[in-house]
């Protein structure tokens, strides 16, 4: 069943890519604006708030870019895993593992903290691939369950061993200044890392033999096996890289934005990565645009809450619409159903 869905998501021919993505994005915005009627606002009014609140001013644009950074990395994480045919729904947990890793290594400086976030995310994701290889446990379940474990692990940490010295709130102390990401203008340096990661992911997938084999395993495990590809190794590798990307997202969020850990640290970035990757049709460079779109949607939704009193969670409504449109409208390949 999940195999079929996979096929659908990957199947569009190159020429059908852009129209479907634009359709999905437009439809989600349109439905979001229409839903304003239920709150006594005209769709036109909501639309203008969404736009001005996300890209209408330098300040808004900065907020959008800030949100786009973690979305870009979790989107890449999902895109790489899905390309290899692995349902990594565990971005949320890997994001938290990465943040936790970065926090623990922060005293050794920024580079160590970033490296720790990559490794921690990769390890957290690899638990799922270990269970797949050992007992054939499906990633779609194990990764999502590992999310819950990570969330509660973080909850325990900020209420216990990692709680701030004053013991007042369920949060950690701030990381040392030396570990914080430097600023580039009004943005932290994480944006360079995230864009660099997108280019690296593109290079990996389309310019290396590892990427070729990874994509082959994702498209057709059986044929890849017959062609001599070690598909299990691809699964393990894809999962580790995917986890590392989500982990890095968590690390950057900690080092560049929040500077401390607290209970609701992940804030849905891991799950939002699925929408980002699908809108990008699993292409790393497409993820750049799609992360920006969802970043804008999230920031715009924040503005909706402030000026129109509509809960900013409508952003997740937009994500859901995009996912549905992408699944429904993506073309099947060559009528082959097997």
């Amino acid at each position, binding site marked *: 069943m999940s195999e079929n869905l996979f096929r659908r998501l990957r199947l569009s021919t190159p020429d059908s890519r852009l129209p479907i993505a634009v359709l999905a994005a437009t439809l989600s915005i349109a439905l979001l604006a229409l839903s304003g009627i239920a709150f006594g606002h005209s769709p036109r009014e909501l639309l203008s708030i969404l736009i001005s609140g996300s890209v209408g001013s330098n300040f808004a644009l900065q907020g959008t870019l800030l949100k786009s950074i973690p979305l870009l990395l979790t989107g890449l994480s999902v895109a790489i895993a899905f390309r290899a045919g692995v349902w990594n729904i565990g971005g949320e947990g890997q994001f938290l593992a990465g943040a936790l890793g970065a926090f623990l290594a922060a005293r050794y400086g920024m580079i160590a903290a970033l490296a720790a976030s990559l490794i921690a995310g990769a390890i957290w994701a690899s638990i799922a691939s270990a269970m797949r290889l050992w007992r054939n446990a499906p990633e779609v379940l194990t990764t999502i369950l590992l999310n819950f474990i990570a969330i509660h692990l973080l909850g325990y940490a900020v209420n216990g061993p990692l709680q701030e010295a004053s013991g007042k709130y369920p949060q950690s102390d701030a990381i040392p200044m030396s570990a914080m990401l430097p600023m580039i203008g009004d943005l932290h340096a994480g944006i360079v890392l995230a864009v660099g990661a997108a280019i690296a992911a593109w290079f990996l997938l*389309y310019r290396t033999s590892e990427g*070729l*084999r990874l994509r082959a395993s994702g498209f*057709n495990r059986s*044929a890849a096996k*017959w*062609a*001599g590809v070690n598909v299990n190794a691809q699964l393990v590798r894809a999962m580790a890289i995917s986890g590392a990307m989500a982990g890095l997202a968590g690390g950057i969020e900690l080092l560049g934005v929040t500077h401390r850990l607290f209970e609701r640290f992940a804030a849905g970035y891991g799950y939002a990565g699925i929408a980002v990757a699908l809108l990008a049709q699993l292409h790393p460079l497409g993820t750049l645009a799609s992360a920006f779109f969802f970043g804008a949607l999230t920031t715009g939704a924040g503005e909706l809450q402030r000026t129109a009193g509509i809960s900013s969670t409508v952003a997740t409504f937009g994500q859901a619409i995009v996912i549905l449109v992408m699944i429904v409208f993506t073309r099947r*390949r*060559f009528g082959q159903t097997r």
Partner: protein
Amino acid sequence: MHLSHITKNFGTNVAVDDVSLNFTQGEIVGLVGENGAGKTTLMSIAAGELTPDTGTVDYTKAGIVHQHFLLVNEFTIAENLALAMWGRDPAEVIRDSGIDLRGFHRRVADLSVGEKSKLELIKAIAGHPRFLILDEPTSVLAPAEARELFDVMRRLAADGVTVVFISHKIPEVLEVATRIVVMRRGRIVVDGGAMSAEQLAEAMVERRSRDVVTIARSIRGEAALQLDTLEVHPGEIVAIIGVAGNGQSELAANLRETLRGRVAHIPEDRARDGLIAEMTIAENIALAEPRWSPRAAARRAGELIERFDIRAQSPLQRAGSLSGGNQQKVILARELERKPEIIVAAEPTRGLDIEATRFVHDELRAAAARGAAILLITSDLDEAFALGDAIHVIYRGRLSARLTPNEAALQAPRLMAGVGSRESGVGA
């Protein structure tokens, strides 16, 4: 029950091609043929589960027992029967069927496959069909259970029910059927009564001519591949022939897992295992290589397209958009370019036209001349005789002794039917 001029296509695939059949009461019809011959499709049409593209069916009350169980595993026997015939006492239904199945409060998940197939049969019989179709019913049964099934079939036939029994196992068809219908590529090729096992085996597999071609080879060395009874030397082509479903696929899959070194595999199921349809020709070919750069791969694929005469617009065309024959050439190009020491080719020319077939054969011969050890698994006897230096017959997962092509020409039909072989009759 009459079927007249039935045709059924699945896409471009002709599953049943203008078939007419009449059935009379009380006969047991053995419907035989290789996998994909159209047996199941024809009978699904007879049972009214599929509509034919053209042709007519005079329906009677038909029951069909499918090869795959249609049972709810979490339900008990009684609950499954209740689903099929609401309101009747399951104990009575079982008693009426005359089939021995006890403990109807047991869950289906806990039953043996033999018991599950009995339950399916009870469901089918309970509707009192005048026409009963059994699709490969013995494939999961132990010999004693199969005998029990045959008794039930005979009893139903004695009551006037027409029983159609789909199978590709020759001995049991000969044992139980009163009439034998052989299908090949969607058509009926034989319809008759008593036949010998050899005649039946020959009717089932395709054979375009009886010429035996032997090609002498000079290179003989150490065995490159040895599997109990199987040896293939460098420069040699050893063919394995048999009726499909006797362990050929398992053999090929096993060799894929176990053979190490420079080994080329040409998979049997081209649609599933051959190429990655979504990727380009260049990408598919590059899968076998350690290095990958799009430009080098495209250049290389361009050369191979020329050399293997692949009809493609460009190396960047998606592999799935090529015709079957050209896809096979891409696989061949990829696999042979590994400079393999061993080649395992399963049904390398299935579905190819004459020209493409000749091309594949020439390439395999050339590879052998370069010193590759080639194992050819095929259900096409012509191919086996045209290429094979030695031939084994596979039957129920066992290989016959190594035969010369001349010996094989004499003995193959009997060995393929499992007649006169020494093996003990345990399933593959």
